[in-house]
């Protein structure tokens, strides 16, 4: 039994059953392994791989410059904000910035469907979890790291950003918005 020492010679060949299972398992695990580098090259969804060190102050500065430059204006020329958060329309193919801070997501990005953007993500204070609803896309925002997500929205509408990395007592109030126009 498993609680008593084995026979003196226990290095015996395995039975047919174990052989079958081992072969099936290895084939399946080879598939799941190779799938990842294949998806990395040919897949349309991959974890972003560009990130740079940045100080919170510099990131905030870059993000604010971006917000000022691309903030949407209404017919009177007044800057548009949603619940006090600037609505910003970045250039398709260009850079956009998202600031994660306790406890808000800024700005409200207004993107165009089918266009690719370099969306920068960083935090000014704690670790935050960027989670886009209802798509369910989840990326980590780390203070001191400018994480660049090259994203192409393939659906339009209004999306919500919630935080899924605990960041203090206001963690659950941290919700933002992202708009994609046709």
């Amino acid at each position, binding site marked *: 039994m498993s609680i008593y020492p084995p026979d003196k010679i226990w290095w015996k060949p395995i039975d047919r*059953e174990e052989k079958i299972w081992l072969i*099936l398992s290895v084939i*399946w695990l080879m598939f799941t392994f190779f799938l990842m580098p294949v998806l990395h090259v040919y897949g349309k*969804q991959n974890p972003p791989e560009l990130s740079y060190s940045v100080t919170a102050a510099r990131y905030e500065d870059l993000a604010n410059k971006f917000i000022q430059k691309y903030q949407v204006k209404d017919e009177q020329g007044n800057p548009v904000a949603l619940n006090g958060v600037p609505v910003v329309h970045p250039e398709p193919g260009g850079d956009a910035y998202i600031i994660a801070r306790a406890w808000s997501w800024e700005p409200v990005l207004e993107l165009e469907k089918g266009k690719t953007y370099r969306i920068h993500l960083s935090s000014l204070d704690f670790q935050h979890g960027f989670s886009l609803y209802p*798509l369910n896309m989840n990326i980590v925002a780390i203070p001191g790291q400018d994480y660049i997500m090259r994203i192409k929205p393939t659906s339009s509408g209004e999306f919500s950003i919630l935080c899924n990395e605990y960041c203090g007592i206001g963690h659950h109030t941290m919700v933002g918005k992202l708009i994609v126009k046709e």
Partner: protein
Amino acid sequence: MSNEDRKLVAPGTLVLAIIFLITFVAVYFLNLKYLSSIWEIR
């Protein structure tokens, strides 16, 4: 009992294990399909 079964020491377990493997493959592919429905990101 077929010839093959007689050589297997635990045929019931092999059946259960294969059901497990099929479930594994199914769940994996469902998730790959779900993945393809989100935005492009790299």
